């Protein structure tokens, strides 16, 4: 069965489809900051977790947590020529690395190489390495690389399993060294962002925010120091790179106010191409790529990048005011906004902090199908902190909201949050003017058409008058009827209705409303 990985407090836990949590054992010396949000990338059969752990880690399907890359050897082995071999020549720069194998013997991680040995010149002898370092991480063994006779290019020499041996010797002939030169290795930085693109991991270091770092292709653990790209403009902001968007065929890197695309296919050809000025990424956690369309929160609204690469502000002309005023949300926390997708309803969900609050306790939703916005939603049952998807027992993705209290909330058809908390359905319509805002009207008896429910009463509170009209006497609409003609609304130039329902376990589904009126004239 599929499962999910959650960060609960200072623990990593797996969550199965029946809701059972299992706490995973972290590698020695690795801790998780409870206040920091983890960032994930899925690479092969592993989940890479960065930002909240003190070192980048991986989790496999069995729940085994490992450091992404063991720390490299620290000391220089002492090379000497000893009897019992057949090597003759000069060998300089022998290096050691630490590797980790999976249970099938496949190398799944290898550290950067340690310091090189000094020159050694055996004469029909073997080379012995003494004083080799042992790892402080859990490893499978040490790997040694040496050049061919009188050469400089390193080739894989041999492995020694375990983490206790400090002396090894071998006399493998040059012709028996691996034909391919030693791989480029290196340890990942303390990553705060991570994404997978074209068999590489890409990320941003905590202390070097202007550079995009990347791993070797096919090796999530190998991060040579040369594998980095400057994302202009260096030093232009404290936050540096604020998000990485991995799409089907393009990798987008954003600062707060600019977007770049990464072009090229390798270190020699990788380059940054500016694709948008004045649009950046405000929150990396708001990024969602769904059906190859990316959605994210920028400073002034929510943007999308479609399959053709066109960038559009999807909040403009509808809810731009949400993101560009202090009326609705705490804009200082936009960098912590979290995005998710509801694949069942084809919606992009964005978790934001209510104005004046410091938790991302509200969420809005963008209907991808028709471009409508809904919300801001809230719940009185818990405080949301994260929105994501989990897989159900049928391996189907379902949206969930995670709470400060350690619970993952999924949808239920019963219109109740948690066990008994009512959902506060609270909708304001427009101020209707019948196309004649200057004319006084008699607003007659509206007809409400709704789905017939088993029970429930909807409270409709009209406002009649000018645009500053006060709320009038509430009207009760019975949800069990399906059609109900309500009382006459009143007289005024405008009429607005508020629809509210706050009873637990009762649904509301409004098909439509018909509101007759009669123009009286203007003064």
């Amino acid at each position: 069965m599929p499962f999910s990985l959650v960060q609960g407090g200072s623990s990593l836990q797996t969550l199965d489809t029946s809701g059972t949590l299992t706490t995973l054992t972290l590698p020695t010396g690795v801790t998780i900051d409870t206040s920091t949000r983890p960032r994930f990338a899925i690479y092969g059969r592993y989940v890479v977790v960065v930002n909240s752990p003190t070192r980048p880690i991986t989790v496999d399907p069995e729940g085994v947590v490992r450091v992404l890359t063991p720390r490299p050897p620290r000391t220089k082995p002492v090379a000497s020529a000893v009897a019992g071999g057949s090597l003759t020549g000069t060998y300089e720069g022998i290096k050691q690395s630490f590797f980790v194998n999976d249970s099938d013997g496949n190398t799944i991680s290898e550290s950067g190489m340690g310091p090189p040995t000094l020159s050694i010149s055996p004469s029909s002898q073997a080379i012995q390495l003494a004083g080799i370092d042992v790892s402080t991480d859990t490893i499978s063994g040490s790997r040694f690389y040496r050049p061919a006779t009188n050469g400089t290019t390193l080739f894989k020499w041999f492995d020694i399993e375990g983490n206790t041996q400090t002396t090894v010797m071998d006399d493998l002939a040059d012709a028996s060294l691996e034909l391919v030169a030693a791989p480029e290795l290196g340890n990942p930085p303390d990553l705060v962002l991570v994404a997978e693109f074209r068999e590489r991991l890409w990320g941003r270091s905590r202390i070097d925010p202007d550079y995009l770092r990347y791993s070797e292709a096919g090796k999530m653990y190998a991060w040579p120091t040369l594998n980095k790209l400057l994302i202009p403009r260096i030093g232009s902001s404290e936050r540096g790179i604020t998000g990485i968007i991995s799409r089907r065929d393009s990798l987008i890197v954003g600062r707060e106010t600019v977007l770049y695309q990464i072009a090229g296919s390798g270190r020699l050809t990788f380059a940054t191409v500016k694709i948008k000025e004045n649009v950046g990424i405000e929150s990396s956690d708001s990024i969602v790529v769904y059906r190859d369309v990316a959605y994210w929160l920028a400073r002034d609204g929510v943007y999308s990048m479609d399959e053709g690469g066109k960038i559009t502000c999807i909040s403009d002309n509808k809810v731009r005011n949400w993101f560009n005023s202090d009326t609705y949300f705490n804009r200082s926390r936009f960098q912590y906004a979290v995005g998710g997708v509801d694949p069942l309803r084809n919606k992009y969900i964005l978790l934001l902090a209510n104005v004046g609050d410091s938790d991302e306790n509200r969420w809005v939703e963008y209907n991808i199908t028709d471009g409508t916005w809904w919300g801001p939603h809230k719940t009185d049952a818990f405080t949301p902190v994260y929105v994501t998807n989990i897989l159900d027992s049928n391996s189907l993705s379902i949206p969930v909201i995670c709470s400060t209290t350690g619970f993952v909330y999924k949808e239920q058809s019963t219109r109740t949050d948690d066990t008994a908390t009512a959902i506060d359905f609270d909708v304001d319509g427009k101020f209707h003017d019948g196309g004649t805002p200057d004319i006084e009207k008699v607003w007659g008896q509206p007809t409400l058409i709704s789905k017939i429910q088993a029970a429930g009463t909807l409270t409709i509170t009209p406002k009649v008058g000018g645009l500053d009209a006060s709320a009038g006497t509430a009207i009760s609409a019975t949800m069990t009827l399906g059609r109900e003609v309500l009382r006459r609304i009143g007289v005024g130039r405008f009429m607005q209705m508020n629809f509210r329902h706050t009873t637990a376990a009762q649904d509301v589904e409004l098909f439509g409303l018909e509101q007759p009126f009669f123009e009286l004239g203007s003064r």
Partner: protein
Amino acid sequence: MPGKINIYSWNGVNVDKNDIQLEDGDLRKAQNATRDPLGAQGSMRKRAGLTKHNSIAAAGAIRGAVSLPLTKPSTRKFVAGRYTGSTAGWNTSTDDFVTSVTTGGPDGYSASATPRLPANIWTNFASADDRQRAFSGRPLVTYKNRIYYAGNDYTLNTTAPTIRVYDGTIDYVLTTIPYSPDVGVQSLGILNMITANGKIYLSTYDGGSYAANTVKTRIFEVDPDSGATAQIGSRFPITPETARVPYALAWWYGRLWCRTYTGGVTATSKTYFIRPGIDDDWTLDNTSAGTLTCSDMFTFQGQLYFACIADTAAAVVRVRNTTGTYSTSKTAALDEGGGTPVMSDFGAYNHFGTLILFSSSLYVSYFNKNAADTNRYARIYKYDGTSWTVVYSPAANATTAVPFHFALVHNSKVYFVSAPSSDTGVTHNVIVSSSDGSAWTDVTTVLDDTSTNTLGIVTS
């Protein structure tokens, strides 16, 4: 003038336009209201409720989560060889042997897909001594969630032994062992199998007699994906030996290692290594490697350990270090102290049986049947790199006082599997397991008395 506003399309929220320019279906606020395409498209509906997925809270606020489309193993299918009368087959458990096993093999096995019988090799490979029937080989490995095993679907001396693979769904022949030119007949069976270097390495018993010192053996490399099979090095015996052939195999130091066997427990055995793909033939290791025959070899903390067999002296665990020096790491004692039953004496072929790495320590089984042939003793030793301790030691002649000759680690548990019967009238059908190396659970009657040393696990 009369008019009417009909709203049958809710447009969602618009807070950008002024009140005059809004469309009739526009909303200023839609708290907990949504457009639900799951049967309610077009209408405005209260959003779905939210219910807890986990009944017990996580360890704190859930700051992040990700789902994996990967299967976390939920079913673990244990299959162990069995042999009842003339019927070979499997015992299968899906609950880690908590309840009774089922026989006949899991779905997907063909009727002929059974592990090869120890009788196919021990009649001639070992001596007539019951004790030596412990050396029936380890003809099964689990690799990448598949079980590779020596099949029993061949006719001894007539058709080629098979290597079969079972992936939890289907079972098929991966490869066969080629004709042996040394003995002029088909190979008789598979002795040992290991996985290393992305390959399966196995040793064969091609024919000849233990007693007459004429046993022939080859070692093969099998690609677990394609089944491509290739002989590694020369056919044994090789110079400087004339009679002894490999029994145990191990991968260490980037090399395949073997140590020879037959010729009696006191015969001088030797260690060879080869670098598959690099070396053409086997290289004799340090000539001062000692003389003891071993039943298993294993890598631990960068050194190669040998589970050795003794005659009437105490058996030992030998170790070869990275510079070629052999030494003794452990010598079995009659009295290991503590609660370990004290043995009366060391009988013939008292031996360390099988080695396994579990929870960063080396575990090795030990078996001794005293000279009077009256008492059986079994132990499991643990070596943490510094000291040896006995972690399992049933009473003499207990049902679990049997020779364990196959070990497996899976899902943070270690399993030791008994060798086929070596004592007339005494059953040896035992698997013991432990999740901490201290407390052991024995599963009796899982195996049948003449079952071979096989235990594999596939997950789904």
